[in-house]
């Protein structure tokens, strides 16, 4: 039954992320089948909370062909806080770049920044590129 590809959609779409993660750890074959369901919509990740909207917008820009420079990405949302950007960068690049979830957690749980912290693309300390 779990060997019938035509049933994959029906079975795996009913599993929550935690259960999908467990299935992905069974063996190579299960991992290959389950991974698309596990990571199909990373904007569903609970930890995004109220940052989901910004995150989604950044995802759209990141996946567009114009997202070739840090400046282009940040210009449309100059009022976006740095925390959101770092969260997005860690998450998106994480699937190939292996960021440290602990570091991400520390970013998420750091004291709220007051107002809108702007990312200055000319500042060397903020010169993080999306690729």
């Amino acid at each position: 039954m779990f060997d019938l590809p035509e049933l994959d959609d029906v079975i795996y779409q009913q599993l929550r992320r935690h259960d999908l993660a467990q299935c992905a750890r069974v063996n190579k074959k299960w991992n290959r089948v389950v991974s698309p369901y596990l990571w199909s919509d990373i904007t569903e990740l609970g930890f995004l909370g109220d940052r989901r909207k910004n995150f989604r917008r950044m995802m759209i820009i990141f996946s567009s062909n114009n997202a070739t420079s840090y400046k282009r990405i940040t210009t449309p949302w100059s009022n976006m806080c740095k925390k959101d950007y770092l969260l997005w960068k860690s998450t998106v690049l994480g699937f190939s770049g292996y960021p440290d979830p602990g570091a991400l957690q520390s970013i998420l749980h750091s004291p709220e920044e007051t107002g809108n912290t702007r990312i200055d693309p000319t500042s060397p300390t903020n010169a993080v590129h999306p690729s």
Partner: protein
Amino acid sequence: MKVTLESSDGQVFTVDKEVAELSVIIKEMLVIEQANQDHPIPLLNVGAVELAKVIEYCEHHRNDPTIDDDEDYDSRKKPIEMDDWDKQFTIVNKEMMFELILAANSMQVKPLLHLGCRYAADIVKRMSPTEIRDLFQIDDDFTPEEQDKIEWEKQWTKL
């Protein structure tokens, strides 16, 4: 109108046409072989025990609205619902349910197929990878490097 079905082990079942037509395959066969309905329809991949259960399911759901479009079964948009009868129906051992899913897939009885898939999903819910391996007799073939990657991904699912 009655239709005769023959299981892979030669047992013959006579059912109402509207019951048999819950199977997409049988419905199509009835259209193609309209002039030859006196002969039993052979179901080469379905044994008598499973066919009896499939017929039992179809008898109960014979008046349900038919759903032809796969989109309507997208479980993300519309979760698969079970009434009390369905819950009773699925109280069988795992092997029997897996055989029923294969029968439903072979006969294309979509509501039963999706009910079975929900049952299958419920089985692996809250199971550890080791428990799933034991249940389905699967070997762990990850290399240490792949294991590291999997462990890393696991952390993300906890966030």
